[in-house]
């Protein structure tokens, strides 16, 4: 992220599709018009935005850039199977409650204890979802990133429905906590399973595709500024050729960037057959893919890429 980019004073900076593209570009995130439109509508309509796409196309990054552009906090919830309310929303700090009871006992005040004394806000551990709802009313609401929702199980997804439509949670001992201003919500999914329709209905949806070669070239230059243009162009062309090659795991933009950075740190100014063979593991993550591409095939692709 370039240090020059100052956080915006408030959200009004993102009040048009062009300004979103521009702001994101300032933070080295190249985004096309249809994605910018989806973000814009999400902000304007107050709807969560569900981003799907192959791994490494910049879904998570978008949330970070959005938070930076809005000059607000990013609250991230990483999903996994078995994620439950206690890990996602709130939990009581039981050890502390115990200590408190002992303390009151020691002081001889135990008989005057009411539930309020040990179920007060100071004993509440706030997990990401609650944090996002409790953010203060005057500032810009935070960006809530619910990452890889497809990894959570259906039970958690069902729970999210409630939060995403009303932006409130109920803690039985305290009452209902409602967001003064709803957070901007970004959900991402890698589609290891289909997200339930009920959840999708509450969201705007955007599928992030692999970028065109030109756009990816811009991304490489923005993210790996030290990379010479020649190298960047070759790397992008080679990766694009790989994406057409029917691989088990197609390299994403993240891999392109990693590769460019790796080549740079090896001091390469351009791609050669040997260097490709040596560093292929940065781009391809499956043994069978590497075995298929390394050597002859890589030379052919390289010839096409540098042509």
């Amino acid at each position, binding site marked *: 992220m370039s240090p020059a980019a100052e956080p915006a004073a408030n959200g009004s900076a993102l009040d048009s599709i062009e300004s979103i593209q521009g702001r994101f570009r300032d933070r080295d995130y190249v985004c096309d018009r249809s994605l910018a439109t989806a973000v*814009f509508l999400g902000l304007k309509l107050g709807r969560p935005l569900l981003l799907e796409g192959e791994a490494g196309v910049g879904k998570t990054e978008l949330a970070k850039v959005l938070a930076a552009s809005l000059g607000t906090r990013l609250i991230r919830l990483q999903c996994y199977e078995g994620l*439950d309310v206690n890990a996602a929303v709130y939990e*009581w700090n*039981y050890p502390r409650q115990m200590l408190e009871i002992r303390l009151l006992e020691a002081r001889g005040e135990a008989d005057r204890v009411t539930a309020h004394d040990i179920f007060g806000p100071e004993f509440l551990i706030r997990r990401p979802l609650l944090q996002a709802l409790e953010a203060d009313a005057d500032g810009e609401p935070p960006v809530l990133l619910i990452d890889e929702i497809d990894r959570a199980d259906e039970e958690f997804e069902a729970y999210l429905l409630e939060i995403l439509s009303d932006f409130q949670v109920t803690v039985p001992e305290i009452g209902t906590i409602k967001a003064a201003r709803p957070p901007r919500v970004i959900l991402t999914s890698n*589609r290891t*399973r*289909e997200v339930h*329709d009920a959840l*999708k209905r509450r969201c*705007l949806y955007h599928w992030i595709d692999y970028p065109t070669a030109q756009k990816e070239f811009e991304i490489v230059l923005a993210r790996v500024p030290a990379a010479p243009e020649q190298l960047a162009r070759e790397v992008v062309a080679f990766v694009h050729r790989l994406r057409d090659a029917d691989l088990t795991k197609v390299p994403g933009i993240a891999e392109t960037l990693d590769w460019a950075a790796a080549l740079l740190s090896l001091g390469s100014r351009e791609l050669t057959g040997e260097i490709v063979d040596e560093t292929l593991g940065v781009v391809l993550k499956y043994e069978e893919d590497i075995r298929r591409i390394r050597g002859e095939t890589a030379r052919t692709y390289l010839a096409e890429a540098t042509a």
Partner: protein
Amino acid sequence: MTTPRDPTDPAIVPAPWGPEVDGRRLLAESVGFGRALRAAGLATDLGAAVDFTRALTLIDVGERELVRAAGQAVFVRRRDDREVYDRVFARWWRRRQRKRPVTDGPATAAEDETLQDQESGLASPTGDEGTLGDHSDTIDGIPMPIAADDDDGSEFDGVIAAPTAYSSSELLRHRDFDRMTAAELRDAERLVDLLEPRLELRRTRRYELHHHGRLLAPRTMLRRNLSTGGQFTEWVWRRPTKRPRHIVVLCDISGSMERHSRLLLRFVQALSAASSVKTESFVFGTRLTRVTRLLRDRDRDRALARVADSVNDWAGGTRIGESFRDFNLHWARRTLRTSGVVIVVSDGWDRGDPALVATETARLRRNCHRLVWLNPLAGTPGYEPLAGGMRAALPFVDDFVPAGTVASLERLGEILAGVRSGDTRRGGEAAASADAGERHSAFVAHLIEPPAALGAGSVARASARPLGGGGSQGA
């Protein structure tokens, strides 16, 4: 238009792209567009149309790409729908453009000669045009069943699961398999009834309190013991909850399987209807088609008819290797978690390259918990897996089951249930050797192909074995 415009009308809203706009007309247009999308198979609802209306007041509606992107964000909910969306959008936009310059109201002559034939797959020339044309000025006039009618979907056969079904160039061969005798139906259902309570369970990462659990439940325990001031008077235990494993069925519907595929699809259908199990279904012949959503229809006959409509290689040749490859590359990550059970229903007659079948079956095996192969031919006495594809795939199959009749299909129940009758080790053993196989799969693949190299003896040596009475002459 008939109604005079009242400047104080709350429905008249300012828009960024023009002086003022009648919100009702925008809404009517959005709803009409939503209906057209719905007719084409997208799962949209009225809420999305309302969102689209709001979106239209925020963007420049003169710019095609913006409107397209906005509608996409609102209406499209899965990647595969984008193609359909773009086609419907193109049609809608053209019609809108034509209407605009003439009058400020939508043209009433909604009959659209030029568009009649060009989207053969997007049926329903009726619904959307009526809405766009006639009801543009009054919300009351908009027919309401838009929001929830899953049951009159006869217009959009096959569109949801298989965008490829659009291509009119390919001849759709409609097999008359959707009419099934009552007896066959009963058989298929009986099978699932037998199966369901015995499906193999998988431990989830969720826990339930249980007094026979082996893990402490500290959270609950602390909570319950708060009343005693932190003196632990009660121990609370928990254990993982269990769920049936996901099932993915890959059903061969090529010519050689014709006699069996009807019954087997019924079986697959009955399985997907069973609520406790998550089932994904695919059919393949020369290529793979996902039919999960089609089979979910409550009307079973219509569901099968839709499958027939959406699949265009009924009773053609078989390319097992390519179909598996397609599954591995494009569907495995989405539909199959490594904890799932894959059931392949095929006789193994394959026109493609056996080496490819071997490689791809190995890969498939690696991605699932257990690979079951149902072979309708294997029930016949004296059966040997001689078909090229079958022989190539066999080393990687955990359970090889004859499936000629419902009676022998019942064995599948035992297998899916992980039974157990004295041979609990079978699955693990097979898996282990399949893992061993897989490590060399890429190298082994081409060694497998010469037919002479792998006779009956080596099949017997292979990890997978028919369940029936000992040898491969099961049942």
